[in-house]
């Protein structure tokens, strides 16, 4: 077992490498997200729903895109051999991949989260009570992206990753139904005030815990691997 300390400079280089290859795609997603927010901000119910669906689609796609492009394709395109021929340990590789994916994902995610809050707060037709619901939904998409990344990293398999994507999307549909029908949430989401009910807080904590557990589990499973090519 390698117990050597991790090389933070090496990890930074690997993160920047992934950012270099994904930066243009992220800007496209950001533009699509901005369009979604513009639709949400526009008056009209149809425009609101179209914008909401586009926003959710953009964020789900960012997560899928990142895991596929930075992990699955690196394996498929055999650039993983190039990376692993460098003075990099498996632990550093895993850390760099998780950091790169989280940071790159957070770039459009945070922008769109803040943008969503701003649109809801500024548009009188949209109830401010939607803000906790929006935070819960967008954090679920973040957690789902971490799940897809974890499966991609551990399995290094396109098929398993696709399975995780399907599971994540099905779970999201059920989650939306479940959350929107929770009495604590349903009673306040259409109200004029932002209410962080115990149910909302519990859901946010559960989502953050799931993200932390997934990251921890990924490191643990990666540390047990004996073959990296």
């Amino acid at each position, binding site marked *: 077992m*390698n117990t050597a300390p991790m090389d933070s400079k090496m990890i930074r280089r690997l993160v920047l490498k992934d950012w270099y290859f994904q930066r243009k795609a992220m800007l496209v997603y950001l533009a699509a997200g901005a369009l979604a927010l513009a639709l949400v901000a526009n008056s009209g119910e149809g425009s609101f729903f179209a914008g909401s669906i586009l926003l959710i689609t953009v964020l789900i796609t960012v997560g899928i895109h990142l895991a596929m492009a930075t992990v699955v394709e690196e394996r498929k395109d*055999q650039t993983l051999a*190039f990376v*692993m021929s*460098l*003075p990099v340990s498996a632990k550093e590789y895993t850390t760099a991949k998780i950091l790169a994916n989280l940071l790159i994902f957070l770039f459009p995610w945070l922008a769109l989260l803040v943008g969503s809050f701003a649109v809801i707060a500024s548009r009188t037709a949209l109830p401010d009570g939607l803000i906790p619901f929006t935070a819960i939904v967008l954090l679920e998409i973040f957690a789902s992206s971490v799940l897809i990344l974890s499966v991609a990293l551990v399995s290094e398999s396109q098929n398993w990753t696709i399975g995780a994507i399907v599971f994540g999307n099905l779970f999201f549909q059920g989650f939306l139904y479940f959350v929107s029908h929770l009495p604590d949430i349903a009673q306040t989401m259409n109200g004029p005030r932002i209410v962080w009910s115990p149910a909302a807080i519990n859901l946010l904590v559960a989502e953050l815990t799931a993200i932390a557990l997934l990251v921890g589990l990924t490191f643990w499973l990666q540390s047990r691997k*004996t073959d*990296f*090519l």
Partner: protein
Amino acid sequence: MTDLAVHFAGVGKTYPHFTLEEIDLELVVGSIMGFIGANGAGKSTTLRILMGLVHQDRGNVRVLGHSMPGSQVAAKRDIGFVSEDLRLYKAATLAWHMAFVRSIYPEWDAAYALDLARRFDLKPEQKIKGLSHGQRVKAALLLALARRPRLLVLDEPTTGLDPVARHEVLGALTEVLADEHRTVLFSSHNTLDVEQISDQITFIDRGRIIDSDDKESFLDRWRRVRLEVPTNVTLPAVPGTVDSTRSGRLAIVTTNRFEPRLTAAYQAAGATVFAVEPMTLEEIFVADVRSRREGKAA
């Protein structure tokens, strides 16, 4: 004590359908070893264990004084690795790759990198996706060589290349290796490629190392002896005979321990020696593998 760049002692790895058997391998600093085996013989597994990318189930591996896989990061600072299944990022230019590798290796020699680009006929500003397979291999070689590694590990770098590209890559590699004092481990299933640049040869088959020696000794001790043998004469059993075929009065004996006394022994038995033929490395490899598989090796 001899300085060893690579030392495998009793190394094994078991997969469901393949086992790398107790591998013992020594590569002396400054030598160029050709690692020859058929497809699926265990070459890539051995080299991946050497790089720390696959962990051995048993045995010890030391590379440039570092224990593997535990100290792989330290070892890989001094290893240049080019593999048939190693690819560069298609969307990036060679110049991007050069800058990326330079940022990792303080020993990166920028002038040498540009010299290699010129010698390999590569344009740094060109994207990898626009390069031919041969050019991509040369680009990977450039990235490995310009960091001035103490050990160069080449895993089937010429596989999949068309004859012209293969010739170009080998020519470039030979030229580069000729003016440098490097330790190189070069695996291939193509003996002609290995023969050109190696001074040590190791054969691997079905997960076992079956022979290892310096190239000249291999070529010196393997011979094919053509004989005329009267029908009432039986050829004496001579140590080192790996194959003996007889058709009527004609016999062909393949030996891996040729010396003049061998022909004298056959002549003393009543046979006439027509010819003692040197063998190519490919012929030696095939004869060695076949005899080991048939359990005839002396």
